[in-house]
């Protein structure tokens, strides 16, 4: 037995070094940009000035954007809760045919980026040239469109279509995990199924509904794409679109930066409030409703409504997913925009060939998005493993700071990150990477750190301490144990973190739109700007390519996770 003598309070060891690096990563990428925003919002010429903050806030333009963000978020949330809860109830508590298949269908909207959806709906329902509206007006010989998508209701409807799965997935989970005897005991007490749904089931899943609702609220308030595509025409701005407008139009003037930071501060505060409420609901209001032995839960017999409701579900999916997707691919293939998209002579694959191989804007955008996505996914995955390891497994002084910093990425919306990154990396502090691809990479890392932390810490929590202690007792050193035991066991978590970052990065718009330069467009930016410039066909063709990439990526994930769980 060889001896080695170490001091009990060894000063700066490996553990401290790892902790230091972890803190440094989170500070540089997340905390510092956010602090700069707060500083710029509240300090004018180096002095604290809350009055000016108030003045900026109450300018009609800013105030209107705040109101819009809030109104659209509320409408979207209410709509999503209704749609998501209803479908969740339908697939878990009734005898709807093909329930498991329907359940997976309702998750498909997750794959469709909402700004691409918005693009499709613009082509379908824009007041004068939308295909549906045109058809309507021709059919009934009127000048009144059927529905104007350039409106609050239009924006909220499109957001609901692509966001409701957040509520759906939460409520489905709660209903499936819920102990069926909670409902059965109400039944034997004399309550009918409708009373039970009203008095027992809905109240018990309320925390899950709320938590999904808050998630949507947060997402919608900070959401850029849909509002940008559908709102700007009518002058409807929300916080992120106004920040974008300010930064872009006035080329980084002081006043516009200030307006941006003030708006971003409001976003940060709302996000913090929402996250805090959600934590509170989850920790306090979350009932212990998971039970002992399990039976199939009671099912409401839909009887005559079974097939009508199935048809309704299919129609919903057809209307919100299939129709927009088909429109994207058709418009992407037209030779002459303005002619019928259903005329086979007007359709070909030439546009797709052109944007993939010939048109430099789109070709570059695809290349940029793929390389940026891969780089961000790699870096964030490894940084996330390290930070999660410190938080979950290590006993080291000063860990509390890291735990706090680790919460931060979850509550900072994309447009805030973009603005903070501009403030931090445009030369004011020695490094200027503005207008380069690096600034987008930096912001992606900040934006997707939360996903990586979540996936990796979940994986690490599965690795019980005793597994590592067992290997130490078997004669393996700490590094040897990390290599032989911990890393192989968290690999699935790392892979899933990789894809959780790579896929959204591929379609990212909110952050990239604020940071792109002519040569550093991403797919999202290219789709958006081409559409702005009136290149509708090229824009939709690229959107079609993006959809194909996303679906392929999703299939790859499903394949990998299936293999891992076997």
């Amino acid at each position, binding site marked *: 037995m060889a001896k080695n003598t170490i001091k009990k309070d060894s000063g700066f060891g490996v553990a401290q070094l790892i902790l230091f690096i972890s803190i440094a990563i989170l500070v540089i990428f997340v905390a510092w940009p956010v602090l700069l925003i707060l500083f710029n919002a509240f300090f004018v010429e180096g002095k604290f000035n809350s009055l000016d903050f108030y003045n900026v806030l109450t300018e009609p333009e800013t105030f209107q954007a705040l109101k819009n963000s809030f109104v659209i978020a509320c409408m979207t949330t209410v709509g999503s809760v209704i749609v998501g809860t209803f479908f969740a109830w339908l697939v878990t508590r009734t005898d709807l045919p093909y329930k498991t298949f329907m359940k997976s269908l309702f998750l498909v909207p997750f794959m469709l980026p909402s700004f691409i959806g918005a693009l499709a709906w613009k082509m379908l329902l824009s007041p004068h040239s939308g295909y549906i509206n045109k058809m309507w007006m021709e059919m009934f010989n009127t000048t009144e469109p059927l529905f104007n998508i350039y409106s609050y209701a239009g924006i909220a409807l499109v957001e609901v279509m692509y966001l409701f799965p957040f509520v759906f997935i939460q409520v489905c989970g709660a209903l499936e995990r819920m102990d069926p005897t909670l409902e059965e005991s109400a039944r034997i*007490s004399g309550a009918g199924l409708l009373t039970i749904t009203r008095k027992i089931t809905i109240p018990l899943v309320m925390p899950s509904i709320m938590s999904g609702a808050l998630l949507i609220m947060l997402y919608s308030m900070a959401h850029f794409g849909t509002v940008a595509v559908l709102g700007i025409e009518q002058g409807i701005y929300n916080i992120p679109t106004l920040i974008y407008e300010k930064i872009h139009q006035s080329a980084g003037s002081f006043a516009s930066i200030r307006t941006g930071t003030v708006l971003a501060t409001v976003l940060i505060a709302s996000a913090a409030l929402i996250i805090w409420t959600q934590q509170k609901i989850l920790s306090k209001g979350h*009932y212990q409703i998971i039970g002992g032995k399990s039976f199939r839960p009671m099912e409401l017999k839909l009887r005559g409504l079974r097939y009508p409701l199935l048809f309704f579900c299919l129609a919903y999916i057809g209307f919100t997913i299939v129709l927009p997707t088909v429109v994207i691919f058709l418009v992407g293939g037209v030779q002459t925009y303005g002619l019928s998209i259903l005329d086979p002579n007007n359709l070909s694959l030439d546009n797709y060939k052109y944007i993939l191989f010939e048109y430099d804007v789109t070709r570059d955008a695809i290349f940029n998005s793929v390389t940026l996505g891969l780089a961000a996914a790699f870096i964030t995955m490894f940084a996330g493993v390290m930070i999660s390891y410190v938080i979950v497994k290590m006993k080291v002084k000063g860990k509390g700071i890291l735990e706090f910093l680790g919460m931060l990425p979850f509550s900072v919306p994309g447009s805030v990150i973009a603005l903070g990154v501009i403030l931090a990396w445009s030369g004011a502090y020695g490094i200027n990477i503005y207008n380069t691809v690096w600034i987008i990479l930096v912001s992606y890392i900040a934006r997707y750190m939360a996903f990586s932390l979540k996936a990796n810490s979940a994986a690490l929590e599965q690795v019980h301490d005793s597994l590592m202690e067992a290997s130490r007792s078997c004669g393996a050193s700490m590094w040897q144990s990390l290599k032989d035991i911990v890393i192989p066991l968290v690999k699935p978590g790392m892979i899933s973190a990789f894809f959780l970052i790579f896929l959204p990065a591929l379609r990212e718009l909110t952050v990239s739109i604020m940071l792109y330069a002519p040569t550093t467009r991403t797919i999202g930016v290219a789709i958006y700007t081409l559409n702005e410039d009136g290149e509708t066909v090229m824009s939709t063709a690229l959107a079609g390519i993006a959809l194909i990439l996303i679906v392929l990526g999703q299939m790859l994930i499903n394949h990998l996770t299936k293999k891992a769980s076997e």
Partner: protein
Amino acid sequence: MSYIRLVNVTKKFGDVTAVDNLNIEIGKGECFSMLGPSGCGKTTTLRMVAGFEDLSDGEVWVGDRLLSSPKKRHYTPPEHRNFGMVFQAFAVWPHMNIYENVAFPLRLRNLPSAEIDKRTKDALTSTNLLKYADQSPADLSGGGKQRVALARALAINPDVMLLDEPLSSLDPHLREEMRFEIKDLQRKYGFSIIYVTHDQSEAMALSDRIMVMKLGVMQQIAAPLDIYNNPVNKFVFSFIGVSNFTDMVWQNGQAHIKGANTAMPNGIIIPDKVKGEEIFNLASRPTEITFTSSTDPNGVQGVVMRKSFLGEIIDYLVQVGDQEIRVQTGRRDLGPAIGEVCYLNFMRPFWYRVDE
């Protein structure tokens, strides 16, 4: 007088028969237990009585009310059966306080509010919960939650109380306490109980009669002491306590423990039903075997293979022929040492055919 009647009750899940042609009659005020390992169909039977499962065949009656009959296309849903039911996982509603949990079934019956208040308080008093009425059930321990469930079931003053492993989620000492409590409540309110459990001592202590089930088939229905005195088959024997099943063979007309040179003593009477069997079983319980002297005419010779001191009891493994027999004695009975030749006296031997 039979009050609850199950007539030819059968339940099939696809090709699997979960409950096979069950006929039970339970009297008013009787405590009837269904005992068996998990998957024996006891819970399914209870759920058919409650109305949560359809019957594949047969009928369920309470008094003169027909509750379920697939043949007559009759089915009363659970909410109209007027039963009380308590579940293993408590199933108290966490979003209502304790008072509201208990009052809920009464409110559904549209009773006058004074009546609701009185009956709720009565039920809470009977279960010693009155002082917690305003609290959330989440603040209570498992035993407390199960009391809320009991109070809720009592409040409607049901004729039939269905209890589905109500004590399995509790600590052992609490389990015993609640057992007494259920018995006392039954004495006070006079309802019939159908009790589902896999714990034989629980069933023995509570019930007037017990049904032992295996793979959906009734094995024996009898009073607890009768089941103890006369388990009808190997399964029932094994299910109501630690058991030895020793293989026996006939050699020259004499019964031998398999592999033993000497025959079983003549004093031990072997019933006719195992005569002519190639191999049959001697069933015994470790506590019902004692060590005796070599001169005992009923002594069966063996060798001690293992002996462990377990505090209250001393646990032996004795080899006889090629069979191993477990013997347990009190801690004061200084038995033989490991490796020693010993003589066993079977105080209550049972005899079964191998396939019984």
